[in-house]
């Protein structure tokens, strides 16, 4: 734990760099934060709930004599569609305010991050609005996700070539 910084120490700092550093530390001390434990509990409940819902769908589709893979496609489809619908109604943001990471991490959070800019930037047109801005939040996830997959795929292939696998 760092030493407490008083505002006097900030104001009496020798130079600008030190003042900025000290002030940031002082502000951090002064600013209340929400309970991490409560946030984690909520994230666990809602995140777990979403996954339970997914599992329920999965079981249901399999009971329609779909194979495991096809059932999981349908499950994804249902979760994404539900998240997009809730985003359009403005309810997903309310859920996320309560759930935090619990609603961001599952695939529904990804759907929300794509649908919400589409709703917001619709006013700027089909091309420059929706087209250009739909991936403003999800874009980095897609780019670096694909990049990481390619990179790991290459490593996997190389390992096979030199006989490691």
């Amino acid at each position, binding site marked *: 734990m760092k030493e407490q910084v*008083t*505002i*006097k120490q*900030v*104001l009496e700092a020798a130079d600008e760099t030190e*003042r*900025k*550093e000290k*002030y*940031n530390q002082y*502000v951090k001390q*002064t*600013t*209340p*934060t*929400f309970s991490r434990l409560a*946030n984690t509990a909520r994230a666990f409940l809602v995140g777990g709930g979403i996954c339970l819902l997914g599992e329920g769908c999965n079981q249901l589709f399999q009971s329609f004599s779909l194979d495991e893979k096809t059932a999981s496609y349908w499950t994804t489809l249902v979760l994404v569609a539900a998240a997009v619908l809730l*985003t*359009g109604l*403005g309810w*997903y*943001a309310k*859920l*996320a*305010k309560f*759930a*935090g990471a619990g*609603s*961001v991490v599952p695939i529904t*959070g990804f759907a*929300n*991050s794509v*649908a*919400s*800019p589409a*709703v*917001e*930037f619709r*006013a700027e047109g089909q091309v420059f609005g929706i087209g250009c801005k739909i991936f403003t*939040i999800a874009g980095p996830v897609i780019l670096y996700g694909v990049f990481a997959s390619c990179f790991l795929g290459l490593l996997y292939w190389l390992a096979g070539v030199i006989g490691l696998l």
Partner: protein
Amino acid sequence: MKTKGKQSVAFAKPPYVLGEASVVGKMEGEGPLGKYFHEICPDPFVGKKTWEEAESALMEKACNLVLANAGVRRDEVNYIVGGDLLAQLMATSFGVERLQIPFFGIYGACSTMGESLTLSAMMVEGEYAQGVLAVTSSHFAGAEKQFRFPLAYGNQRPASATWTVTGSGAVILGNEALMSGQKQLAPGAKVVITGITVGRITDYGIKDSMHMGAAMAPAAAATILANFSDFGVDAKAYDLIVTGDLGTIGSQILYDITEARGVSIRKNHIDCGVKIYDPARQDVHAGGSGCGCSAVTLTGYLLRKMREGVYKRILFVPTGAMLSPVSFHEELTIPGIAYGIILERK
């Protein structure tokens, strides 16, 4: 010279506040100051199709309302000095277009009302105008869209975050001649601007765009202390010292800084961002913010209380966090600014 001290101006012929108008959204109308605002628009789109157009509509309403409230004709107003939070002052240029009054667009982030009042007062007192309309606005959804995330995007805001006020505030300042031609106000209800203190950019290195109170508090402290030293006064000289949108945490930081400098303003300080919402009923975290925050609190609440005689002398200090989405992503700090305006009941 009319300048006073290092960064202030004392007016020999103080410009009059001829009239004021405040137009707000639903949430501000439901807040503790709701009954003081001139008009409440329950529709967040104000009958328009986009958030930006809605903000312009709020501003146009405020401009028309202030002309009526001040009892001044459009051709008696020489200039409009105004601005907002949207890039290239989009809300303002569309909002004032139909008034056809010569226009200056300014950007002071959430301190814009202070900047516009400062410049307008100098224009009137310097006899470059008989009447000037100072206006600003902000809209919660438009600000979120430009500076943060789409409204429907699900995320959590930290405790230090503030809520952008949906609203527009307008004031008309005028000289003695324009004041004497005006019959709206009861005698004794006159309010003038006797002095101003122009703020400097003050940057203590805050980078968190969700903690604007901390970015602005040092600027507010600097302007308040400069005002005291330039005019040779202390906190007791004012019935009220009103900062713009520091919020609860920013206000605490302001007290800490001023007290470390040997000045206590705790007793007669209020913050518009703390005043405008009720934290128990309205989920706004650290308080309200945005250009509209200090503007509608001034035009709806403070000026009314001054005209009623509750307050005689106020130091109005709108505060601005000059961040842009670009500077934020380039990991730069958030420069702060604050303007001091001395309002007196005459």
